[in-house]
């Protein structure tokens, strides 16, 4: 197994560049032996985090940057995604599965991150998310 991969990337608020970072994280996870289920989960959660940073944090302003820091080891994957926005209070995001919200076209990203990651944490300001995916035994 390769030693821990630790990288940092600062990208403009651009979905193609976000995809490149996402691919790099998944590639590192693949090299460290994470299974298909974990790779699917990481790809989805990182995609959601990056999309939120670009769209909601930086309002798709290409002049604003998204900073991605990640570390991939044999035990777990850590990804930090931060934007230049004002931040938000994640506890105030409505439950997208509530009947009154089910038909809303947005608001599911954080729910999916939490469903697929071992841990999801936001900084106090709400402009940085920390995703953790621990490798399951066996």
């Amino acid at each position: 197994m390769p030693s821990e991969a630790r990288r940092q990337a600062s990208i403009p608020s651009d979905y193609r560049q976000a995809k490149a970072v996402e691919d790099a994280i998944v590639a590192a996870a693949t090299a460290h032996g994470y299974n298909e289920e974990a790779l699917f989960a990481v790809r989805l959660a990182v995609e959601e985090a990056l999309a939120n940073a670009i769209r909601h944090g930086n309002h798709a302003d290409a002049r604003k940057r998204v900073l991605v820091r990640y570390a991939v080891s044999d035990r777990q994957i850590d990804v930090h995604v931060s934007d230049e926005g004002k931040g938000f209070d994640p506890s105030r995001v409505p439950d997208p599965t509530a009947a009154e919200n089910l038909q809303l076209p947005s608001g599911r990203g954080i729910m999916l991150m939490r469903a697929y990651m071992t841990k999801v944490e936001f900084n106090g300001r709400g402009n940085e998310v920390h995703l953790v995916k621990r490798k399951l035994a066996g």
Partner: protein
Amino acid sequence: MKNQARIARRSEGNVTVAELLDEEILDETTIAEVGEALFTVVEENPGLKLVVSFGRVKHLSSMALGILIRLGKRVEESRGSVKLCEIRASLHEIFVITKLNRLFEIYDTEEMAVNSFSG
């Protein structure tokens, strides 16, 4: 790319099947183009009986789900109906987690989805 076909469209009797051609429906550009292709089918066919097939799709994001929801509303407004099919287990889990499996009828196969319109 803008000119890349995002769906393959065919008729099965009076049901229109739209097969999504992308393996990954994640980024905003792809999602917008897939949405545009699907909405075009709907706008051209009021009262449409539509099946959207996910057989080739391996990854999709919450933004893609948003397009589906908007599509469902538009189809309903035009007195049509949309059903989904061929969603692999990993993606079906997303529909279950978000409870969108309560919003859409989802079938294992295209044949089952098409036949459900004549039931």
